[in-house]
């Protein structure tokens, strides 16, 4: 199958399957680490230890919780629509993981004499693919909220849908600045174009807009109105428990990983290192992971610091501030590039 765009070399089918497995495996290994990292870090921010009972330094806490959730009784409200109620979390997690295939973790490497790209796929429509999956992941939230048959879930889903759509526009426009500068839609191409300067310096406005919109897209504080535990209990997953709840949780964290991966790729130079350092190729994935960790730490830091916006403030911020700013950024970038 050569359906996807600019193929400069050919990978045999088994390499693609191995890559898919590796990506899945790495993500499901990273997720619990991410969860314990967030909880530990939040604990430090709040003057406490965080979980420290299960395993050394409490590192096995996520495992214990996964077991706990898995053993819970599957439950659904009497008003729920059974089939959709079950499918919705799956949509959420599938779309989140599929988007991850796009994040390039390194350049093309020779492994056992076989050239292998250290990414899931490299398509000629790069970021559009992410947005397409983001568009589908909306159904994970909307169906979950609607099929629960609960007013809280429904309000959360409605908020989520409106928020995702509103901020997707600004996020997309912020990206276009980078795309114009790089002159390509291929994510590996964008990284290679950053060899001289990482794009977060010339595209600093775009970077800030992208990060702000990403907080909204991943439903993280201060834009976590979709969950808004104080108002809507849990938003669209109010009625979920057990493994379905874990699926939503994982989807949310995976989205965070994807967004930080995209931010690293587009703005922070991907696997490149500053000051002309050229490490051997096997270091590349670790460079990308380290940069992603920095972005994720930013996510957690903001969560520990900022309170939540109100719904109308969120909307007016998205449409009245972020969108004009992104448009202006795009305009200026276009003029500079064309000139």
């Amino acid at each position, binding site marked *: 199958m050569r359906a996807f765009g600019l193929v400069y070399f050919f990978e045999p089918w088994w390499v693609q399957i191995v890559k898919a497995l590796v990506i899945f495996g790495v993500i499901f290994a990273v997720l619990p680490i991410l969860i314990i990292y967030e909880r530990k870090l939040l604990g430090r921010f709040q003057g406490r230890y965080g979980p420290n009972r299960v395993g050394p330094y409490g590192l096995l806490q996520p495992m214990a919780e996964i077991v706990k959730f898995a053993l819970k009784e599957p439950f659904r409200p009497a008003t729920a629509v059974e089939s959709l109620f079950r499918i919705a979390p799956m949509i959420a997690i599938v779309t989140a993981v599929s988007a991850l295939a796009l994040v390039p973790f390194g350049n093309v490497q020779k492994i056992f004499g076989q050239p292998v790209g250290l990414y899931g796929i490299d398509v000629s*429509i790069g970021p*559009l693919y992410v*947005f*397409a999956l983001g568009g589908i992941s909306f159904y994970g939230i909307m169906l979950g909220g*609607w099929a629960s048959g609960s007013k809280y879930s429904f309000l959360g889903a409605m908020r989520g849908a409106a928020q995702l759509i509103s901020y997707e526009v600004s996020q997309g426009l912020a990206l276009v600045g980078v795309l114009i500068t790089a002159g390509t*839609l291929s994510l590996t191409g964008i990284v290679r174009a950053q060899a001289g300067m990482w794009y977060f310096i010339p595209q600093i406005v775009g970077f800030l807009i992208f990060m702000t919109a990403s907080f909204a897209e991943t439903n993280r504080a201060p834009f976590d109105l979709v969950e808004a535990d104080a108002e809507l209990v849990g938003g669209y997953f109010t009625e979920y428990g057990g493994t379905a709840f874990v699926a939503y949780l994982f989807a949310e964290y995976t989205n965070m990983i994807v967004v930080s991966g995209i931010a690293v790729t587009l703005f922070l130079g991907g696997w490149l290192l500053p000051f002309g350092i050229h490490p051997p190729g096997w270091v590349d994935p670790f460079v990308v992971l380290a940069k992603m960790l920095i972005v994720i730490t930013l996510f957690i830091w903001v969560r520990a610091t900022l309170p939540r916006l109100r719904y109308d403030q969120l909307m007016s911020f998205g449409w009245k501030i972020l969108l004009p700013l992104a448009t202006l950024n795009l305009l200026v970038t276009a003029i500079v590039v064309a000139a």
Partner: protein
Amino acid sequence: MSAVLFFIAAIVAIAGAFGVVMLRNPFYNVLSLVCHLVALAALFLLLRAEFVAAAQVVVYAGAVMVLYVFVVAYVGGADESVTHFTGGADRPGALRVLGPLFGVAVAVELCIALLGTALKGISGKGAPYVLGFGTPKQIGTEFLTTYLFPFEVASLLLLVAAIGAVVLARRRRGLEPDESLDARLRPARPAYTGTMAEVAGLVAHGDGEAGR
């Protein structure tokens, strides 16, 4: 490989289309159209129209269908309103019988046209693949050179549609309070909610006026 993918995608697309027509609950109609659209995007990918495929999912599944979902959720996707909503039955009379007949007739005619065509390309696998076919670059160039006028007209159309939708769906009144709302905010109390007054025999059971 591509044949298998084609048949899977085609079957899902046709099944989704059937779902749109056959299912009774508007919410499921919309969802089956989403399935249909995603399958169609896969078909586009097989035809090497990557940008169109991505646009299909982003625009259709991600935005247009979201509007549908909103409206269905708003107008009523729950059970009780579904019956009221779809009327439970198809359109009456001649249309119900003639409609499918007409559909079959059109299908037969189109198939005859396809089979009897003199177009040679139809039975081929398409033009030789050129690097860069279907990329955003190529389509963008076309849009800004050959098809500039349609492009501008389409954007104008979008603007008009956006304004029209706002005008149509706008609320007639703002958020200022009015009396009819106040009246509706105080629904009659059901029986027994004022138990003690009722037990004391002061009011009849369920006399909503006593609670005003």
